[in-house]
């Protein structure tokens, strides 16, 4: 049982990192970023590229990869998403789909679709750790949980205390009033894209070091998307309970049901949520009318 809980917590942390990206972009611009899964592969491959070509060990490679990913998120907003301002939201969502296709094609062109292991390139070992209670997780599993906790703590502090974070919340709540107060929306949107790419890339860096790295990892992004919806698309706080819930259901259904259920149980959660409470656990209800 302790093992089930530990595994679920690790899966939940990974989903939470990815889902944070969905929520950040959605709250700011009401656009659903369907390329979030490719942000994960991008983070993994950036780590691999830095580790293989620049060197300097994990102390240099991991921050460099994260920073490059955030920069990519910023550029994506500038080049692809900003021209979509004023277009229907659905068109913008489709642009994120094409963004995912382009990112994936670029990754396969540059790195081929072989399976890679960035942790080996960096020379990092991944020894198992025994937790109190008898559960065993790998070191990177533990790091995933800690990173997710740190990222969420950082995001909450940023949104609560810093002027930019307060502007971001204002823009998410009442866009018209916020713009009349003179808040620069494009700066906020660009920031939210950079943060979303950073969160996705952190998930990618951790997952690829822990398990493996290949272009088809972007399915994880779609599963995390179920998490974002269960928590409420416009609620960052909702991501954490939703991630734990979805991960627990997934781990339990794999353990007591069928391994194939791992791919479908998040979507069953999503369907159930859409039928019962479409605005999510902690989302705002009128959000549904606005779309």
């Amino acid at each position, binding site marked *: 049982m302790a093992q089930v809980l530990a595994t679920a917590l690790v899966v939940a942390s990974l989903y939470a990192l990815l889902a944070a990206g969905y929520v950040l972009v959605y709250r700011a611009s009401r656009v659903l970023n369907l390329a979030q899964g490719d942000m994960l592969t991008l983070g993994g491959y950036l780590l691999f590229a830095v580790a293989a070509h620049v060197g300097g060990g994990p102390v240099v490679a991991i921050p460099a990869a994260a920073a490059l990913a955030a920069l990519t998120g910023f550029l994506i907003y500038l080049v692809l998403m900003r021209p*979509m301002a004023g277009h229907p*939201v659905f068109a913008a969502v489709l642009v994120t789909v094409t963004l995912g296709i382009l990112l994936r094609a670029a990754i396969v062109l540059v790195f081929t679709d072989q399976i890679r292991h960035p942790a080996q390139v960096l020379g990092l070992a991944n020894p198992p750790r025994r937790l109190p209670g008898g559960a065993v997780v790998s070191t990177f599993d533990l790091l995933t949980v800690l990173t997710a906790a740190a990222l969420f703590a950082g995001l909450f502090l940023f949104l609560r205390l810093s002027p930019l974070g307060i502007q971001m919340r204002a823009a998410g709540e009442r866009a018209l009033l916020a713009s009349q107060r003179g808040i620069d929306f494009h700066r906020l949107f660009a920031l939210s894209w950079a943060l979303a790419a950073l969160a996705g890339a952190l998930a990618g860096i951790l997952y690829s070091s822990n398990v493996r790295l290949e272009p088809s990892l972007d399915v994880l992004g779609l599963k995390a998307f179920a998490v974002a919806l269960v928590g409420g698309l416009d609620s960052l706080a909702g991501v954490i309970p939703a991630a734990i819930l979805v991960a627990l259901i997934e781990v339990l259904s794999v353990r007591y049901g069928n391994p*194939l259920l791992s791919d479908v149980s998040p979507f069953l959660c999503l369907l159930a949520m859409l039928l019962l409470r479409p605005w999510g656990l902690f989302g705002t209800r009128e959000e549904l009318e606005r779309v």
Partner: protein
Amino acid sequence: MALGGGYFKTTYASDLALVDTRLRRVAVAALAVALLVLPRVTSSFVLDLAAQVALAAIGALALNVLTGLAGQISLGHAGFICAGAFTTAALVEYGVRSPWAALGAAAAVGAALGLIVGIPSLRLRGLYLALGTLAMHHVVLYVASELQSRWGANTGYSIPPPRVAGFTLRGTVTWYYVLTGLAALALCFAANLQRSRAGRAWMAIRDREIAAASVGIPVARYKVLAFVCSSTVTSVAGALFAFQRGFVSVEAFGFLLTIEYIAMIIIGGLGSALGAVLGAAFVTLMPYAIDALVAGLQLRAGAEYYLFPAKFGAFGLLMALFLVFEPQGLVGIWLRVRNWFLLWPFRYRPLRPAS
């Protein structure tokens, strides 16, 4: 197009006709003759491509009814196709060999799925609805992969060629005729649906739901009807896909297939039956065009490896370009070219029609 004079319809028959002027009748007849004699003049490779385009056109027309006319976004199109294909496979597995039964069962399964997905559309709008269809896609794929492994077919399930009235449908030429004929039927169906009561109701709902309700359109019923119509035709297209390939596998129905169909109706032009067909041809033929281009360039050895990601990337890039620069799609470009010739030597229509 109203140019202010010349051509007026004087009988109900001419008002109802799908092909209304003599020039268009000649053009349609010429196209039909060209399609009929195509197997005589081209290789089986070209015929196979044409059959693929026809099959894709049926799916794209169905998606266009849902997204283009009724304005309901679906990210689960591949799920409906998969449902049709696996219904066919299930019938073969359990000993029912009649293709009519397979098509009927696929249509019934498609209609049932459309009903299931359509009912949440009464509460959900826009993105939320798209997500529901996405979830449905994954559930259908899960059921299909369960079935596939239960039948002991790990890589895929083989389907024998169907027999219709004592005639076995196999070979490129036969399937070319079958699929082109069915695509023509689907095109007529879609074009007629668009100008029927249901089609006009869908367009009203798409443009402004509240306004549609206030002129007496039962919004809920028509939304569900759009889902059912679209998914029935899509599922039948899936059954045809299974029969034509003679092989079904879950891997063929990934999320990418959904994106391809969405790309077809966007590149073709949303809300236009002609656009759906043009988009289907464009998206289906583009990879082959890139192949031909690369073969013509005679790149050095080892370059083939980059072909697949390059095609994939070109597909994404084209879709993005159409979304950003030409939301009307290929049909929009065609209309502009046509108007340019119609109006020449002028650049704009007269401000007031000369009546």
